[in-house]
């Protein structure tokens, strides 16, 4: 029987607890705001003897993920955490980790990318890792950051997946706000995550192997990449399996998407992360006035749940896709492109608008959500065109 501790904690507290309970053999990390308190909390757990981990203090994020790659190839359970410029500095190793099929779990405190310098929350950093072959979760709350981080370990380490996982939470908004949190007991989480059983470890195995070999002309590189694509495409049932198993343990629902009142909604806003609660608050207000508003939040961003997104949106009259980052020069922001591509397979065409919002931690007021819904009504009636706009800027 599992025991639950209710306490007032931040998202970073909860990620540190989740990591402690999953008890990685190796954590190599470098501090960066607003991720720092994850690693700080974790270092305290190690110092207090509450978890037995080789904690490697490195000189940069480039080194942090490099050390993780080595340790993971050796056969260890490995985790790290970063944010913003730190994630950007890891770009080389992001691809090495996925290309070598190493099940590293990394938490990211989602933060703006320089310039101008800004320490606050948006998704510009994560979108730089979007195409790197990592499974990517976006949490809405501190509690969900905990749940996502715990389920990341068995998903990453399942031999059918064997891919790294990025478990993200919005900088400051989720990493630093104190909320009501539920922590399961250590034994329950330990039993859930199990142990990593590496397939071809560099050490601890009885046959000598090499990892990360040169693969040049002759097609090997090409085929390894095809296998990587096949692995992430085949991962949804495994993600669902471990999500369902965790749902049974903790009682909180797991799905790739979190759909609020979309079934009969005329106007639906789609987004990632912490802003969804604000959208639901406004959707409830609008429903009380007879306007059928819905909210679709994408929790598993890679692999992108296109079928589930399409099914949730298919009855809408107009759709607003909110991006907390931009893909400069592209037709739309990252989520805008994903959602529109998913909608292409519908027999009927639903008009969409793409909104870039909340960059650099800009406060997401209820008024901005009201404005987006009001524009969707215009879009549906044909008085507003499709396209991209910035929501909430002064000019």
């Amino acid at each position, binding site marked *: 029987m599992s025991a639950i501790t209710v306490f007032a904690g931040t998202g970073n507290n909860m990620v540190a607890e989740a990591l402690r309970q999953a008890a990685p053999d190796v954590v190599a990390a470098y501090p960066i705001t607003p991720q720092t308190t994850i690693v700080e909390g974790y270092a305290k757990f190690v110092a207090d003897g509450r978890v037995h981990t080789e904690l490697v203090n490195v000189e940069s994020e480039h080194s942090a993920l490099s050390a993780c790659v080595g340790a993971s190839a050796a056969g260890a359970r490995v985790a790290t955490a970063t944010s913003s410029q730190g994630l950007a500095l890891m770009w080389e190793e992001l691809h090495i980790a996925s290309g070598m099929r190493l099940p590293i779990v990394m938490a990211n405190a989602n933060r703006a990318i320089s310039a101008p310098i800004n320490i606050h929350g948006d998704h510009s950093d994560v979108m730089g890792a979007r195409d790197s072959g990592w499974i990517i979760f976006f949490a*809405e709350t501190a509690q969900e950051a905990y749940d996502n981080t715990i389920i990341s370990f068995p998903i990453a380490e399942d031999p059918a997946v064997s891919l790294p996982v990025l478990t993200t939470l919005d900088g400051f908004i989720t990493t630093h706000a104190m*909320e009501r949190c539920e922590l399961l007991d250590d034994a329950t989480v330990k039993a859930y995550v199990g142990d990593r059983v590496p397939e071809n470890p560099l050490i601890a195995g009885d046959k000598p192997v090499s990892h990360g070999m040169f693969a040049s002309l002759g097609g090997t590189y090409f085929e390894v990449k095809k296998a990587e694509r096949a692995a992430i495409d085949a991962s949804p049932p495994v993600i669902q399996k471990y999500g369902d198993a965790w749902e049974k343990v903790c009682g909180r629902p797991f799905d790739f998407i979190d759909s609020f009142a979309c079934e009969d909604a005329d106007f639906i806003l789609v987004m990632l992360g912490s802003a969804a609660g604000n959208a639901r608050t406004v959707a409830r207000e609008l429903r009380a006035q007879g306007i059928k508003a819905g909210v679709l939040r994408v929790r598993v961003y890679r692999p992108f749940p296109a079928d589930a997104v399409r099914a949730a949106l298919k009855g809408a009259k107009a759709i607003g896709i909110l991006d907390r980052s931009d893909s400069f020069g592209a037709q739309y922001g990252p989520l805008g492109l994903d959602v529109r591509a998913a909608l292409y397979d519908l027999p009927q065409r639903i008009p969409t608008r793409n909104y870039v919002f909340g960059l650099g931690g800009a406060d*997401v007021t209820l008024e901005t959500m009201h404005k987006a819904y009001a524009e969707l009504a215009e879009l549906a009636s044909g008085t507003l065109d499709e396209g991209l706009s910035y929501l909430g800027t002064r000019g």
Partner: protein
Amino acid sequence: MQELVEIRWHARAGQGAVTASKLLAETALLQGQYIQAMPEYGPERTGAPLKAYTRVSNERIELHNNIVHPDIVVILDDTLLPIIDVLEGIKEGGTVILNTALSAEEARAALKAPADLRVATVDASGIAVATIKRDIPNTPIVGALAEITGVVPVQALKDNLIKSFGKKFSQEVIDANLASVDRAVEEVKVA
């Protein structure tokens, strides 16, 4: 209690407003409420004006933005009044709690508070200097807030102080903080 209570804290960095916002939230959590507490992060310089926020509700809190229409505004430093619009967006019938040596009537005038607002004053700095021996007005002002608004019971606040401060501070410090709460409860005035 009403469904959702939103509290905005105004202070200068170093006065303990962030701790106060969390102390109140933790106390409410122990009373079975849902909570949220967050500072508005920026460059951290002692003495610079800052804002912090606390939400308390009977139901799960879904909002994740700054509080723009607070039910309660707490001001830990009356030198902020000429430079910050502390009443910005406050709800009709809301409550303002000010750390000041002014009387409640003088404070109402200094705040230019509309008639529908309740204005409470307490010399939390004076109480802090007398009890805790340092001008850290956060604990007494949370005591005044509990007394005036009932967001949490005063006794629950004291129980939580014993529990949470017990991990970090000596019995002497805890007793001084408890005494500061008692004095604030006694001395807070409403105009």
